Structures are given as structure tokens and as C-alpha cells.
């Protein structure tokens, strides 16, 4: 009995001694560290082609963006397949202080559109446990600075009230980086126009947007985006927006080159008012350049 007690004491004391455990692994003595980290760089930038990605610029980052769309390929030789003119351009300044909330403003030549948006990274995909997806909220407001082209004909100015110039887009972007190379996101989008063109048009539209990228090398990727218009909002002939592109990253720049059937650059333009189609080569070349500054 006493012997048992002695042995028990010995075993107890020895097992409590760190000397016996993990003799070969000093770091192991510090205990298991469960590494839970946010997944970074699901996409190269805050835009894929036209669509917003789930990404928000890093903390204290100012993103200066130039987006350019040429004319359609099917304009033929005379317009040199769209390169001659009729381009649409957006210049944007977008900033994030904390790497989660982004504020942006921009001006688009097509429809003389002024835009301002808020984007918030609600949830980050984590490796080693935690959220399997990233969720980003996006809300944007558009204000056209066009004059009413039909004012003389109709005898009234449809933009007499400033609110008639406004439209809005909201989306919840849900995405996942499946591997170092492959990322995919889906976003339900809600678009509202204060004023629509025709009496039969609806003020609201719902679109489901999907976007994906596949990295070819460390610094370049193939991208694809598609916006499916889920509701009937107009009797006019519009088409789903579809774009295929190539991302190239060069230090502080991201250069994106692509073809898309959308001429507009903003959510209220490309999601719902794309008038060209791929089947008759109504597609155009476009590029985005992003230059970031740390402020």
C-alpha cells in the first residue's frame, strides 16, 4: 500500500515535469497554437471587370482608378472595330482607412453619371476555422448630370426635380477563395431608378451577379463575370452582362484588360441597360487601371 503510494507520487511528479515531455520540440512546449488567419487576395482588386469584387482596399489606401471602354467590335473597319471613338470612361477615387469600410466617388462619361458608394467588408473568410466565406456589403448612389434631350419635344424637363436624376444599387457579395488560384463570388443585386425611361418600365430590378478568377501565374489571372437579370423590368431589348478578361499585376498597379458586351461602367448601367450582345460581336475592348497610394 505504501509502496503504491510512493510509486503514485513518483509518477505524478515526473509526469508534471516538463523535462519528460516533448524533449525534441522546444516550441512544442509553448503549447498548440491554432492558427486562424484571414484569407487574403481573393481577387486582385476591388473590381473584376465591371463588377465589384468582395475586396476592399487595405488600410490607409487610396485607390485611383481609370476605367475605359471602347466602341463595339461590330462597328467594323470604318470605326476600326470600336477603337476610333465613342468611348466611355470613369475616373474614380476610392479610399479605405481601416481596410474594411471603403468610400468611393467617381464620374462616368456615359450618361454623365456621378457616383458615390460605400462598401463594407462584413465577414472575412478565415483559414484554420472561422467563416468559410467572405461577405461584403455594397451600396451605391448615382446622379446623372445630363440635360433632358427631349425637353423641347415634350415641352417639359424630366429632370426638373433633382431626385429624378438619381438611381441606386445595393448588393451583398458572398465569395470564397477555394484555392490559391481559384476564387468565386455570387452577389444578389437590387437596383432602383427614381425615374425610368418608359411608362412600361419598372423602377426596380434584381440581378444575380457571378464573378470568378483563375490565376495563371503568380501575377496574372483570367477573369469571368456574368450578371443574370432575374426580374422583368422593361420591354426593351436588353442583354445580360458578360465579360472575359485578364488581370496583370505590376507592383503598385493592377492592369485589367478584357472584352465585355456592356458599355456602361456603373451598376445601374451594365447590369440592367446592356444593349449589345455577344452573338453579333457587340462586344468591346476595355481596360481598368488601378494605382494605389498609402495615405
Amino acid at each position, binding site marked *: 500500500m505504501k509502496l503504491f503510494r510512493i510509486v503514485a507520487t513518483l509518477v505524478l511528479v515526473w509526469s508534471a515535469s516538463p523535462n519528460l515531455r516533448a524533449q525534441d520540440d522546444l516550441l512544442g512546449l509553448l503549447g498548440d497554437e491554432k492558427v486562424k488567419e484571414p484569407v*487574403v487576395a481573393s481577387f486582385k482588386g476591388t473590381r473584376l471587370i465591371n463588377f465589384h469584387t468582395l475586396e476592399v482596399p487595405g488600410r490607409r489606401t487610396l485607390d485611383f482608378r481609370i476605367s475605359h471602354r471602347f466602341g463595339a467590335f461590330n462597328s467594323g473597319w470604318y470605326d476600326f472595330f470600336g477603337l476610333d471613338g465613342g468611348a466611355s470612361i470613369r475616373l474614380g477615387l476610392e479610399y479605405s482607412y481601416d481596410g474594411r469600410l471603403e468610400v468611393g466617388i467617381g464620374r462616368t462619361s456615359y450618361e454623365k453619371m456621378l457616383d458615390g458608394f460605400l462598401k463594407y467588408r462584413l465577414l472575412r473568410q478565415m483559414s484554420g476555422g472561422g467563416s468559410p466565406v467572405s461577405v461584403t456589403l455594397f451600396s451605391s448612389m448615382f446622379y446623372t448630370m445630363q440635360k433632358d434631350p427631349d425637353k423641347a419635344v415634350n415641352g417639359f424637363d424630366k429632370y426638373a426635380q433633382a431626385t429624378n436624376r438619381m438611381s441606386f444599387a445595393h448588393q451583398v457579395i458572398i465569395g470564397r477563395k477555394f484555392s490559391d488560384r481559384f476564387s468565386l463570388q455570387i452577389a444578389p443585386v437590387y437596383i432602383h431608378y427614381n425615374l425610368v425611361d418608359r411608362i412600361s418600365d419598372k423602377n426596380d430590378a434584381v440581378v444575380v451577379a457571378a464573378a470568378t478568377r483563375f490565376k495563371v501565374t503568380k501575377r496574372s489571372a483570367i477573369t469571368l463575370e456574368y450578371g443574370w437579370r432575374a426580374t422583368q423590368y422593361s420591354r426593351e431589348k436588353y442583354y445580360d452582362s458578360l465579360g472575359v478578361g485578364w488581370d496583370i499585376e*505590376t507592383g503598385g498597379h493592377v492592369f485589367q484588360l478584357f472584352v465585355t458586351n456592356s458599355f456602361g461602367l456603373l451598376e445601374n448601367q451594365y447590369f440592367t441597360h446592356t444593349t449589345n450582345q455577344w452573338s453579333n460581336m457587340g462586344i468591346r475592348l476595355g481596360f481598368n487601371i488601378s494605382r494605389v497610394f498609402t495615405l
Partner: protein
Amino acid sequence: MSVLRKSASLLLLAVIALAPAVLSAQQRYYTRDAKVYFDATNKNSPERVDATSKSGTLVIDAASGRVESAVLVKGFLFEKALMQEHFNENYMESSKFPKATFKGQITDASKVSFNKDGVYKTEIAGDLSIHGVSKPVKTTATITVKGGKISASTNFNVGLADYGIDIPSLVADKLAKEARLTIDANLEPMK
């Protein structure tokens, strides 16, 4: 009498059994918040390429002189968020290789007495593992003992190409071929 003798022998056994536990508590020193800094700025570049992690782990076994250290690659904070992203995504590939580790030996450990104040210049040799590549390295370290507090610091140069980290020609004028790594740690005795 026999009761006394028995309890005495029990006490003796307990002391013998406890001894390694007590000794080893004195023998090892560790930290979880070592400062790890690296600078890979090219000489003439106006843009600094440097970052700090304040959560490096370091364990020193005083008796054997063994040293082990680890740092999470994602724990390095850069001034520029985009540079940090590129560091993780393109250079260190931190999702594949989340940790950089060092396992080695203070080759002249006998010089250091951890319970006597002093500044000890020592030599360290071991394997540095970064980006999935392990290479032997050798450097000097300073161990300072002052009023029971132990701190250690060291630095060495890491050739990026040695660890399979490609430098694209585009950034060759910004990024040095070697990064200077500096580690500063304040250690506590391990209980």
C-alpha cells in the same frame, strides 16, 4: 521509529522526483512576443520594403544551448497594405508556408550563465526554414542578463533566392537580393 524512517525515505524520494521539475523550470526561457523585423529595401530605392512582427516565439534551453524560434508570415505588418498582400500572396506564399522557423544551437552555450548579470556575445548555428526551404545559417547573438531579466537579440542576412523567393525584374530595383532580419526578444523563465 519505522514510521519516521518511512516518512523520511518518502520525503527523500519526493525530493529526487521533484528535482528535475524544479531544475528544468530554471533551465528554459521563452517568449511569445519577440520582435522580428526585416528590411529588404534595395540601396537606391525610395520605397521602403520592410515589416515587423511582434509575435515571434522563441525558446532557449539553457542547459543544452538549444534554441528554437518561429514566426507567422501573416503576422508581418507593412506600412503599405498592398505590399503586405503581395508579400503574402506572391513572395512568401503564406497560405502554403504559414511559418518561418529557426532550430539551432548556441555553439558556445557554456559561456552564458543565465543567472548572473552580464552581456554575453554568443554564436548560433542552425537551420532556418523559410518558404518551405531549410538552410543552415550561422550568426552571432547577444544575450543580456540583468536583474534576472533575460533578453536576446540577433540579426542575419537572408538571401531571397536561397529560399526560392523569386524577384520579378520589374521590382528588382526596389527589392534587395538579401533581406536583413533582426530579432529582439525579452524572455521569461518557463514554468
